[in-house]
């Protein structure tokens, strides 16, 4: 299915799900309100004509405040259907003061570690994740290193970091 057909198909099933569409992008994507994500994700995976069986990547983005635009954190999902050979990007834009996103780890087990990485490095909390711990940094690390305003500590457990 082409991107336009995908959007039409999704809108027919879930009219509220697509908040924004970006067909012009190199990898076309849609913005999803976080409340809509669980239902949409289930549709994308289970609808036979969509059949997004594979989660290629789940990542995060930190966007600092610029002008009127507030500081946000994005959770970005890239899906692929091996059967139909079509792709779709999903972006959930979260308020930096309340970076909570529904987990899709139950639908795509791949997302388990990816969501942990996104939590570890950016501090996005995934609601419903089976085991939301840090995955790369040590358990007692402080802060989320890929945030743009992150300040590296001077020492870690008595070892210099400068």
């Amino acid at each position, binding site marked *: 299915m082409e991107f336009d057909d995908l959007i039409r198909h999704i809108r027919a099933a879930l009219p509220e799900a697509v908040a924004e569409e970006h067909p012009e992008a190199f990898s076309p994507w849609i913005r999803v309100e976080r409340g809509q994500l669980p239902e949409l994700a289930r549709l994308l995976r289970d609808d036979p004509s969509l059949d997004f069986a594979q989660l290629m990547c789940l990542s995060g983005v930190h966007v600092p405040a610029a002008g009127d635009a507030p500081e946000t954190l994005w959770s970005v999902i890239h899906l692929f259907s091996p059967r139909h050979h079509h792709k779709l990007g999903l972006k959930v834009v979260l308020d930096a003061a309340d970076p909570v996103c529904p987990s899709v780890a139950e639908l795509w087990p791949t997302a388990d570690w990816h969501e942990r990485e996104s939590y570890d490095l950016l501090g996005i909390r995934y609601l419903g994740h089976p085991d939301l711990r840090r995955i*790369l*940094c040590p358990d007692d690390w402080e802060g989320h290193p890929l945030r743009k305003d992150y300040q590296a500590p001077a020492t870690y*457990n008595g*070892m210099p*970091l400068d």
Partner: protein
Amino acid sequence: MNLPIERHEGGNIILTSAEWLVNEAIARSLWPMTFGLACCAIEMMAAGAGRFDLARFGSEVFRPTPRQADCMIVAGTVTMKMASRVKLLYEQMPEPKFVISMGSCANCGGPYWQHGYHVLKGVDRIIPVDVYIPGCPPRPEALLEGMELLRDIIRGKKPRQGAEARSA
């Protein structure tokens, strides 16, 4: 080779100094610890394999436990998460013990020297290093030369820069 050995007359007895004998034994059977941290470990594995063959110098027995190892080859990037483990492993090794810092990351943080929030800027900040091998990564020949230098240090031909020099 001019060895400090004296043959005793009239029997199968040789005389030498205990220091020389012990040092020579250590130098000719340096057992490294089996662990690699990054791409330098690939070169270390190549050094252990047939083409370069560490076994020629008595170092083919990579030990999977620190308690049987003489020499720690820090081959790769030391992250802060790994640093405390490296220190623990070093402390578990029996004396006499030696450390080779292999490659730019272990020497000084390498490409992560400025913006690597999670990388230790040189393994010598947590454990004493005897030999530094430059390179990113160093070729197996460089590791062989580094181990040869370590053997010279053990034989007393070169001053030790690690533990003893630090405590002095």
